[in-house]
């Protein structure tokens, strides 16, 4: 591929400048996004009510308990929703519109005492990932950063394909340039998935009213009102009946549903007009052989049965669903890995780490070049970057510690945790400017990360009163994996702390005596 020399210069400059604008936001988004890939694991770890053994075979269907729960909690019988235990949440959830949900241990069928518990860590990590922590403009800002990432990907690809022997020879010696380039190429599909969905959800949805206005001759400006009824059509509630009848056992109904729709993996059961004459039971979920197109959040497929007779009333197959719904479902599945087990999450996690390294190398390439320029200004930016890109690691460990330290019943608990998280992050920013030696800053960040991760692990053990080996022997795999990971991270950061002195590369960024 050949482009004009001047155009190549323009493109390189635009790639650098826009990269610097987007790197900080996109780094934060990628960092927290990479962690939230393991959201089901983190949620299981942070919610004590999910600490139950799952080694016994459980019977999903809960007829007797359901009747009792509906009566005791006065659930609205028009539509009772039962979310079956899954990889995402191992608890069994029963709810109805505008009423509190009831959670059950699916193995013992006992009602779980939530005791004000709330998934603080995963919620805050997710907020930081989407930019929702910045009021009003956060989501749009992340959308803009994602659009810039798409530009960086396309411009990077063009620059990669432009053959210039001279530059290749010069740059091949630079390890960071070589791997920034190679990682960039490897990550192209990853960037397309995540930056495109990020741009769509962040930027395009917040500016979607222009599309609504232009398509309705300036009559409607809400895209939800136009598109919602087409792709998110809800099943209408059934008309009221007074006559009460005893429905078939849920286990029997589930058997009929599976017999008529064997490829459907049931995730949710909706009972309309529970125990009334015209009651219907809808079993919905995803296709075992096509998870992407039938992701359970966007495009769930279903089978509707008459609760009294078990007769199949409706069967919604993949062919019957809207084309756009299938497209969005694929997007959603690729971004959130809905219903996916561990393996795919590990692959995306590794790609996320590679992305973070690629972004870091990109920044370092620019920072190295500017060492000989206006030192004072770039010195400030370098220290700011250390606090932002590395300081986020111990700050997120502090957030996890606060989750266990601050009582669940405390008023405005989330605000306290979120506020203290920002305070700790600011502390690393302050320390980066206060401390003269770059090596000392790295040492402090690594050592504090090591201590904080170890403390997080210990606090979890103390709070839940279960030791690590007990977690393993009680088959609490998710909680065990997270605790083990925390120990590994603590050891890794301690190792890095011990090795900082030998990082000769950092010396060139040390503060000069003439500044």
């Amino acid at each position: 591929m050949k482009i004009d020399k001047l155009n190549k210069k323009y493109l390189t400059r635009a790639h650098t400048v826009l990269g610097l604008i987007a790197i900080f936001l996109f780094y934060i988004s990628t960092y927290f996004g990479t962690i939230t890939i393991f959201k089901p694991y983190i949620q299981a770890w942070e919610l004590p009510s999910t600490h139950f053994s799952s080694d016994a075979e459980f019977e999903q269907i809960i007829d007797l308990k359901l009747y009792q729960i509906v009566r005791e909690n006065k659930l609205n019988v028009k539509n009772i929703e039962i979310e079956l235990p899954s990889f995402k949440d191992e608890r069994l959830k029963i709810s109805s519109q505008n009423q509190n949900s009831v959670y059950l241990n699916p193995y013992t069928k006992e009602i779980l005492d939530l005791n004000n518990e709330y998934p603080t860590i995963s919620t805050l990590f997710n907020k930081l990932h989407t930019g929702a922590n910045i009021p009003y403009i956060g989501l749009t800002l992340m959308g803009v950063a994602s659009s810039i990432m798409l530009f960086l990907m396309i411009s990077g690809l063009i620059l990669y394909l432009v053959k210039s022997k001279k530059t290749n020879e010069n740059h091949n010696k630079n390890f960071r340039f070589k791997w920034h380039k190679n990682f960039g190429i490897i990550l192209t599909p990853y960037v397309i998935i995540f930056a495109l969905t990020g741009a769509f959800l962040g930027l395009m949805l917040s500016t979607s009213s222009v599309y609504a206005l232009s398509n309705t001759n300036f009559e409607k400006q809400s895209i939800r009102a136009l598109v919602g009824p087409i792709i998110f059509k809800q099943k209408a509630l059934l008309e009221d009946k007074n006559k009460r009848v005893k429905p078939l056992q849920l286990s029997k109904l589930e058997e009929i549903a599976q017999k008529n729709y064997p490829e459907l993996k049931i995730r949710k059961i909706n009972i309309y007009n529970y125990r009334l004459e015209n009651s219907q039971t809808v079993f919905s979920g995803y296709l075992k052989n096509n998870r992407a197109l039938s992701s359970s959040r966007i495009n769930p497929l279903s089978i509707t049965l008459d609760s009294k007779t078990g007769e199949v009333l409706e069967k919604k197959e993949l062919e019957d669903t809207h084309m756009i719904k299938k497209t969005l479902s694929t997007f959603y599945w690729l971004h959130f890995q809905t219903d996916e087990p561990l393996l795919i999450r590990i692959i995306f996690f590794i790609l996320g780490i590679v992305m973070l390294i690629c972004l870091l190398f990109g920044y370092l390439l620019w920072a190295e070049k500017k060492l000989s320029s206006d030192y004072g200004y770039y010195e400030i930016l370098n220290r700011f970057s250390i606090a932002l890109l590395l300081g986020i690691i111990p700050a997120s460990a502090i957030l996890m510690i606060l989750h266990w330290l601050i009582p669940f019943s405390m008023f405005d608990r989330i605000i306290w945790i979120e506020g203290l998280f920002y305070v700790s992050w600011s502390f690393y920013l302050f320390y980066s400017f206060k401390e003269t030696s770059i090596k000392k800053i790295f040492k402090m960040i690594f050592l504090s990360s090591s201590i904080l991760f170890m403390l997080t692990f210990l606090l979890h053990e103390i709070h839940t009163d279960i030791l690590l080996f007990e977690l393993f022997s009680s088959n609490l795999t998710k909680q065990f994996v997270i605790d083990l990971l925390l120990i590994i991270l603590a050891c890794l950061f301690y190792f890095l702390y011990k090795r900082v002195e030998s990082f000769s590369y950092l010396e060139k960024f040390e503060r000069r005596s003439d500044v």
Partner: protein
Amino acid sequence: MFKKTKSFLHETKSKVGLVHGFTACIGAVILSYLSTLLLSIFLEGDYAVKIIPSMITAPILMSIWGIWILFSKTRYIALKKTFFSSSFLLICLYFSINGF
């Protein structure tokens, strides 16, 4: 003053300056929105078919339009590309909404 502005706009620089860069960014956003709005009007089907694909393609088009404007030797060419293309798309959009 006119001469000064004219020479400023026609000057070829080795670096992307503020005017050039700003034109590329703003131009890319305007052109991508206008072209996808036009696409949404031309696509046949319900509102979901018309709007969602246009919204998905907009961020990609933003980069492509941006690179196209960026590849201008002078600021004048960059401004000309942005102005004429957006005018053309605006006229097309006006007629496709209101009819001829």
